[in-house]
């Protein structure tokens, strides 16, 4: 297709600024981090010294790194599954809970589910500090106290802490995906649903055989988003966990270790190597997910 004369200049004029901003603030820092990963930069000198693959060999035998990676594996399995299941369930009820319509008050619920998405992560951190507070002053433990149950150390029990944090992540994410799926479901033609209903299709069957297949593209995108979110978790872990990543490293995640290695240990080179590892991990995940979940696209 040939563009009319002069329009290229027009297009470039529009694109130049965002591209420059993107290059300076996203691409360049990435390249810089890749370069730093091969140095022993301590963050304060003007000239980083090249150290080859030292940082990466050290990384492979760093138990903290592997603990963090292990937590990402858990997050990667649980966060998308839990969020998608809950979000799909809610979206289905809101849109098709009563045949082609949602349950009563569905517009209201949709807005309510979206609330957590509007809050800044720091606010959520503070909020859940109060919810999870380990003594009777906490919201959850206060309720438990009413029925005579001893306070539970939501964030202080090493085998419970990570799950408490995952619950917050899921709570925060569900609203967005409810809205995303609701939009997707609204696109499904009414005739298809009505036809299925006339054929005597029940709710569950409707969901698994009509809604889900027609929604597959959206689900796939959601899966990738959530997978990438599973490689983060920094802000919540930093604000909520004991000793930032504790107790006993039971909640630590890679971004937190990167931050600690850079700003507490002053090992910016090593931290960059961790960052590169994180980059490779999330990229591999995204590519794999898109490959594995690829299906015939259903035209409608």
């Amino acid at each position, binding site marked *: 297709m040939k563009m009319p004369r002069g329009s290229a200049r027009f297009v*470039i004029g529009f694109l130049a600024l965002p591209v420059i901003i993107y290059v300076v603030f996203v691409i360049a820092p990435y*390249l810089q981090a890749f370069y730093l990963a091969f140095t022993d930069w301590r963050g*304060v*000198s003007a000239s980083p010294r090249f150290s080859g693959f030292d940082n990466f060999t050290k990384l492979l035998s760093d138990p903290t790194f592997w603990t963090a990676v292990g937590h990402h594996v858990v997050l990667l399995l649980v966060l998308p599954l839990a969020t998608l299941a809950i979000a799909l369930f809610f979206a289905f009820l809101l849109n098709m809970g009563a045949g082609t319509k949602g349950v009563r008050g569905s517009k209201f619920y949709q807005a309510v589910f979206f609330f957590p998405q509007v809050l800044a992560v720091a606010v959520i951190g503070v909020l859940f500090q109060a919810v999870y507070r380990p003594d009777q002053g906490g919201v959850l433990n206060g309720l438990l106290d009413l029925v005579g149950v001893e306070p539970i150390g939501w964030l202080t029990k090493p085998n419970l802490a990570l799950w408490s944090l995952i619950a917050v992540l899921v709570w925060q994410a569900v609203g967005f995906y409810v809205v995303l799926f609701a939009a997707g479901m609204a696109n499904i033609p009414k005739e298809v649903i009505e036809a299925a209903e006339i054929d005597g299709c029940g709710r569950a069957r409707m969901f698994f055989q009509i809604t889900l297949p027609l929604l597959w593209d959206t689900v796939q995108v959601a899966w990738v988003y959530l997978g990438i979110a599973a490689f983060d978790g920094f802000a919540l872990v930093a604000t909520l966990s004991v000793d930032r990543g504790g107790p006993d490293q039971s909640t630590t995640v890679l971004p937190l270790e990167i931050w600690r290695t850079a700003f507490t240990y002053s090992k910016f080179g090593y931290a960059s190597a961790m960052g590169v590892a994180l980059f490779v991990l999330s990229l591999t995940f995204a590519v794999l997910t898109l490959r594995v979940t690829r299906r015939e696209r259903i035209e409608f």
Partner: protein
Amino acid sequence: MSAALPQNPSRRSVLKGIGMAALAAGPLSACAFGSSDQPSTGGSTGEKSNTNPFGVVANAPLEIVIFKGGLGDAYATDVHEPLYKKAFPQAEIKHVPTQQIAQTLQPRFAGGNVPDMISNAGSDMMDNGALQSEGQLLDLSPLFAAPAIGGTGTVRDTLLPGVVEAGLIGDKPYLLKYIYTVYGLWYDSALFKAKGWEPAKDFAEFDALLGKIKAAGLQPYAYAGKNASYYQYWMIAISAAQIGGNQVLIDMDNLKEGVWTSDPVRKAAEAWASIGKKYLDPANEGLTHTEVQTAQNQGKIGFYPSGSWLENEQKEQTPAAFQYALAPTPSVTSSDKLPFGAVRAAAGESYIVPSKAKNSAGGLEYLRIMLSKDGARGFTEKTGNITVVKGAADGLKLSPGAQSSNDALNKAGDNIITYNLFEDWYKEFETELRSKTNALMFGRITADQFCKDVQAKADAVKADSSITKQNRTS
């Protein structure tokens, strides 16, 4: 850049363009590492004289960065900066208060645009060892050799013993440790008097006393596991020094083989672990220092381990009847090297002058003003903390907590337990120690395991060639 693109860009040529731009941004972005490699001499200086020993240029602007934490920053804005202004009326002072020293200043150090004086403190302080090894810190020897303001002799002569040494990195003083801090167990003396409780002299008494406090419905002992577990490892270190003498702490700093598994440390860990097991509420592991300290102010907690800044930090929350007092840590064995009453007291809170500061002479002069009688007195008045300047607080009416620390210091006499420098020197080790301290105190590992794990980390740090090793002899 857009001019370099062809008129009708194909997908490929646009991608190529972006790639070129990325490459071009490489050298461009290198400015994040700073542009000059040569260490600058620290700005221009004026004429030196007895009253202006560093040759401060009278109209040179001065930038002061203050960690605004427990001490606030009024001591700088209301005391030291006006004093500087009085000496150099033409100088413009830029005052920068922050709680995030590292986040604020790290990029500036990397970029070569540094302030003239920094109070490097708080949980996000910059690593002094790293700064020094990169040549970013100014040697403060001239400061201590300069004539003292309003006195006779040098600045060094006006300081308490050990102050200059506390700021050594390698063999030169790069840090001014300004505050004299006393560490121990803090309690409400008014409450204790009303209940008839007396601070304990040894761990057997301590155990019995905590039992009595528990029976009265209080949490007998508490510390904040969420963000201040180091308060607790201080107590373990102090007890270890009581048992085995200061050499134990010096060995810790030197990463000496087997020091953490040695008898004094193991016994100290055992003693504190048993207190943790019997008297520590598991909820404390998930609470912050503010939450626990406020609970103590509300009369819910018996003893809390901390340093003498605590009273000032809690000023807003403390009810009028609450009287902070300091108890020395109880003796562990009958054969302890140091008698009961020994306390840890140390010059703390680092003040530094960056070597590449534009007005480093002004930075030094600012520190000299801080160390003058007026500067130190004003600091004590504003913060309730005693400085390293000899007798500067004499005659001041001290608050109950400060008075109690002063009394404890006087009673301790020569039995002063030394500080630990590994906290500054080996952050990776320190992080592990915090984590293991929580595990020990909340009963997830035994004292033996604690000693073994911590020693293993010390050995690992010692073996790591990328970490610069420090050494102290006293």
